[in-house]
């Protein structure tokens, strides 16, 4: 068990998962992100899953949930660093995270978010 740290840089929240993401921590992450988003002035959320090697349907749903919640609160979520094996698993489970933007790594994900900020 490890809490997922959330770092705020400018108008972006960056949550980097350390090692694996367990249900309890994921729920806590969702709640904390929600509270931070409520305060406003956040444009984007970057969720880094590069250390995660196992994902089940619960987590997939939760990630989709985070993305939808943040959109409702006016911020866009980009999920980055999904490993190939995890991607295959998610697709086979039929949980291809619809409506969630993705990028290969944190750098590209951040570029997506900042581009959007510039357009807006």
């Amino acid at each position, binding site marked *: 068990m490890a809490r997922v740290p959330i770092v705020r840089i400018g108008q972006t929240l960056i949550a980097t998962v350390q090692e694996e993401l367990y249900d309890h921590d994921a729920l806590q992450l969702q709640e904390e992100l929600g509270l931070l988003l409520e305060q406003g002035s956040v444009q984007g959320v970057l969720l880094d899953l590069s250390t995660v090697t196992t994902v089940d349907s619960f987590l997939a749903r939760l990630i989709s949930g985070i993305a939808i919640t943040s959109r409702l609160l006016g911020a866009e979520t980009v*999920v*980055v660093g*999904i*490993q*190939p094996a*995890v*991607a*295959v698993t*998610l*697709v*086979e489970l039929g949980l*291809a*995270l619809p409506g969630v933007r*993705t*990028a*290969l*790594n944190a750098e*590209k*994900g951040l570029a997506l978010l900042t581009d959007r900020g510039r357009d807006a």
Partner: protein
Amino acid sequence: MRASGGEATTHADREETLQQQRATISELQTPVIEVWDGILALPIIGSVDTARAQEMNEALLQRIVETGSEIVLLDITGVPVVDTAVARHLLETVAAARLLGADVFIVGLSSRMAMTLVQLGLDLSHVTTRATLAKGLELAFARLGLAVVAHKSGAHWPTPADGDKR
């Protein structure tokens, strides 16, 4: 005694040859080509079954991570028949690559194939498709903010010394 021993050897030989050929085919069937910085091409030749689709998928995802590519051109010019199973495999590849942050364009669709897909009632609304690889590449360039410019002074192009008299 000798005859049966010889037979066993030929059988083993044949088995070995078969294994080698199988290995060669599986190597040949999943070439992932980096056609441009950030653009991968996956030309599929022949029919696609589950095992092959999985292999292709793995090879492709691996290459996306290695090269950091953002666009994949899935060329199905060489696929003779597209049925629901093949289409499902292709859509799975598209979805998996998308999770890694890469856009997949399915290119090389023939009009017949397009009609079949429509008749099968498959939802391809979220997949970008083009008729030819060239069109797909054009779109990929546009997506990456690149443009192909024709220079009128084509003579400046370095040619192999004097041999080339174009």
